[in-house]
């Protein structure tokens, strides 16, 4: 199944939407713009009717897999169900049609929603102040690390140029540290999957600005030495940064602020049920301890005498990371989710996220290699059995075969420290039935791998397209349609 490009459906003279005629006196173009500023030819956009366009994009949607289509155990991405009521809320005219520069008197509902979201996120994470401005997790990381940089500089600590990240970290962590002008120092994991304390001690010193950590780690394991780690980092004069990708595991059970973290970013599109949109938009709010609050991006939403205001008076702020106030539409969805669940409901989210992951690990532990056989949190990491390697079966082959059975595969080849990693995160919104079906199919795929390895190596068979030539795509890039 393939679909023509929209350009290939184009026929000169068609138009999908009509505009009203000009109702003001028309001035000749040359009187309004110098000739050399005017485009000689309109850009060759497609010319299609409304039905052509609608069918084209509906057909494309049918070639796409989302949480609403089937099980999506993509580790580290928290592909939980996205409640429809939140979509409806964000689409309400009183939210969707607000201009960012309209007077705050007209926006009290929106500002209250933002303010309460800031407060709730602070309560959930144990931080003192929040900004909703960052548009995504990586954007939040950048914001948080720049706050750390500005804070240290304000204390005259200009020699702190290094940022420590564990070898199990998300790729965004080292990339962020570089973007913020730090040098990255990698620290290895110990045999239990946590930070190796001895290795950490060796790299800590007066040149260290921060340690970036995910807890539970990307291995799905709780870093139980977190207090010691926090003490070591703080004693060395550094700060502790929390990558909130895995917060779904611990809500109501533990808070980064109580563990000693100074700065956190959250992913509203993971933990708080907002959809991922095929790659975005998300939202990556950042929370800090009181001492770092003056450095938050401006403006922040404050409450004064019963009204809500945008406070721009932050002279030590790092500035801005985005125009306006963040991905407000996404924040509306997260707020809706918070009010649906409340404190107790959020704790149940984590309870069942962790139960589901442990149950699925239990169902699969005799069939996959589990490199860290401990109780996991919201996800677990596994490797294919040893004998499959001898048959030339890779994790990629298993993932591709799962597509034929109607599942989105788990995250593969991450974290980098686990051989042929398969990272499974079921989330709390999946029932036992779904987990059992998935476990049965995965076991069946492993059997197929033994009985008939070629079946896996050539999979998938039933998808709209089959395995792609990614090498040619990168070597001879074709990145757009060109007019003839």
């Amino acid at each position: 199944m393939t679909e023509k490009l929209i350009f290939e459906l184009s026929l000169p003279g068609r138009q999908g939407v009509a505009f009203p005629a000009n109702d003001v006196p028309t001035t000749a173009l040359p009187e309004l713009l110098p000739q050399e500023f005017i485009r000689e030819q309109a850009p060759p956009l497609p010319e299609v009717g409304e039905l052509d366009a609608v069918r084209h994009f509906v057909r494309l949607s049918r070639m796409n897999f989302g949480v609403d289509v089937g099980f999506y155990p993509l580790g580290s991405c928290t592909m939980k169900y996205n409640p429809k009521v939140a979509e409806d809320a964000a689409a309400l005219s009183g939210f969707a049609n607000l201009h960012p520069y309209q007077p705050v008197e007209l926006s009290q509902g929106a500002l209250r929603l933002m303010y309460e979201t800031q407060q709730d996120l602070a309560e959930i994470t144990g931080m003192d102040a929040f900004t909703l401005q960052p548009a995504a997790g990586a954007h939040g990381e950048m914001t948080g690390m720049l706050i750390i940089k500005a804070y240290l500089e304000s204390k005259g600590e200009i020699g702190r140029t290094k940022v420590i990240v564990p070898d199990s970290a998300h790729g965004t962590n080292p990339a962020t540290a570089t973007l913020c002008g730090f040098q990255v120092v990698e620290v290895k994991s110990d045999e239990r999957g946590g930070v190796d304390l001895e290795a950490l001690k060796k790299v800590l010193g007066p040149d260290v600005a921060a340690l970036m950590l995910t807890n539970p780690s990307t291995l799905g394991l709780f870093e139980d030495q977190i207090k010691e780690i926090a003490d070591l980092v703080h004693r060395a004069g550094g700060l502790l940064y929390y990558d909130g990708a895995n917060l779904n595991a611990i809500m109501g059970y533990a808070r980064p602020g109580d563990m000693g973290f100074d700065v956190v970013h959250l992913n509203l599109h993971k933990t708080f049920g907002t959809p991922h949109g095929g790659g975005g938009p998300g939202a990556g709010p950042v929370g800090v301890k009181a001492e770092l609050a003056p450095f938050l991006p401006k403006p922040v939403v404050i409450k004064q005498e019963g009204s809500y205001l945008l406070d721009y008076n932050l002279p030590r702020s790092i500035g801005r990371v985005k125009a306006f106030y963040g991905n407000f539409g996404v924040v509306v969805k997260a707020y809706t989710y918070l009010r649906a669940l409340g404190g107790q409901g959020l704790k149940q989210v984590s309870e069942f996220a962790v139960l589901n992951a442990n149950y699925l690990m239990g169902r699969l532990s005799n069939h996959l290699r589990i490199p860290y056989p401990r109780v996991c949190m919201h996800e677990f990491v596994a490797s294919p059995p040893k004998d499959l390697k001898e048959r030339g079966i890779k994790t990629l082959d298993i993932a591709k075969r799962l597509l034929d059975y109607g599942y989105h595969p788990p995250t593969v080849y991450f974290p980098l420290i686990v051989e042929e990693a398969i990272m499974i995160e079921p989330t709390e919104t999946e029932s036992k039935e779904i987990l059992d079906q998935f476990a049965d199919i995965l076991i069946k795929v492993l059997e197929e791998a033994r009985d008939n390895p070629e079946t896996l190596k050539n999979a998938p068979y039933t998808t709209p397209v089959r395995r792609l030539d990614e090498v040619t795509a990168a070597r001879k890039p074709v990145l757009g349609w060109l007019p003839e």
Partner: protein
Amino acid sequence: MRFIPHTEEERRQMLDLLGIEHTDRLFEEIPRDVRLNRELQVEGGLSEMELSRHMASLAGINTGVDETVCFLGAGAYDHYIPSAVKHILSRSEFYTAYTPYQPEISQGVLQSIFEYQSMICLLTDMDAANASMYDGASALAEAALMACAATRRDRVVVAKTVHPEYREVVRTYLYGHGIEISEAPFREGQTKVEDAAGLLDNKTAALLVQYPNFFGSVEDLAKLAEAAHAVGALLAVCADPIALGLLKSPGQCGADIVVGEGQSLGNPLSYGGPYLGFLACREKFLRKMPGRIVGQTVDVDGRRAYVLTLQAREQHIRRDKATSNICSNQALCALAATVYLSLVGRQGLRQVAELCLQKTAYARNLLSQLPGYQLPWQAPVFKEFVIKTKVAPDIINRELLKHNILGGLDLGRYYPELAGHMLFCVTEKRSRQEIDLLADRLGALS
């Protein structure tokens, strides 16, 4: 339990398999001294019916552009969104998907991004576009970083006619690298080439300008490009995509990198986000581009297909050596832009642009003839213009609001030297009657 399907029986069976009595056992991994020993104080537990009512009442407190007549722009625009856009965007195969890591089951998102990249290239006359950035401001900041990497220089010149918040974002992004920023002043509402040229030197990586600029004036890109290139710097342009239906493209004027805010293309105002930033460049800078890029290829059966490509630039492969830390794009907003541009098409985009141009010219002319209002500058404008007022802008806006009009931006807020100046925006949605009403009310005030 909200959105959690387990029955008590299922939960017991699951605990049995794990050989434990209670889920608390699973959380013993968390040391006692960091456990939270109280309930989270977060309001909630509302049923869907209560929740819908609560959200409607919060939304109801706000008054937006559909209940007023909006003459406010300044980076967020009240353009018409064809109905089909929201219907396509509500397809949950699109919106509940993650980044298309598994191309075999993600052709919908991948092909739509490929079409989006194509359209951005056609609008800007650039060779390659990425899958989108967070917004126009962050796209401009990434363009500055890209130019520094491409030229191995560490200084940029930003026109003061670039959106003030965009300039702040550029400053924040460059802070980490210690890149020096100079701001080129404006005269007559435009960046004059001699003023920019005076700041450009052989250490300058790029000149950053907006097109049309923050005041609505159309900058002379060709001359600015010449000045930048004369010292080996790049020209990075932040363009309004609607204007590109009518104005000469930045590519034709000599720009090297073109970015912009794509909100105008089918995305609601939504109090400032989510929007999308587009970023496009000439081929020689392709491998310095940040963000996701989709390319065309074939599958094992020879069928045409699309895939994320050139990933060797990105954080999940290169880690600390990546071109940027960006991980996501604004795929759903980019889809809105793609559907919008498909519906309006070649002729429609030009129509929208001409409607904006004509109505803005009409409003500008009308307002400039009112006593107490004058045009400070004569530079050509597209869909926004600046007017100098005798009465203070905040008083004007308060008065306009009484007549349900959302007035222009008070420029004194961002440019102290422009106290008593307002920035008005007139899109294709404003009728002659609404513009006349604005003029009437302003006239009554002076």
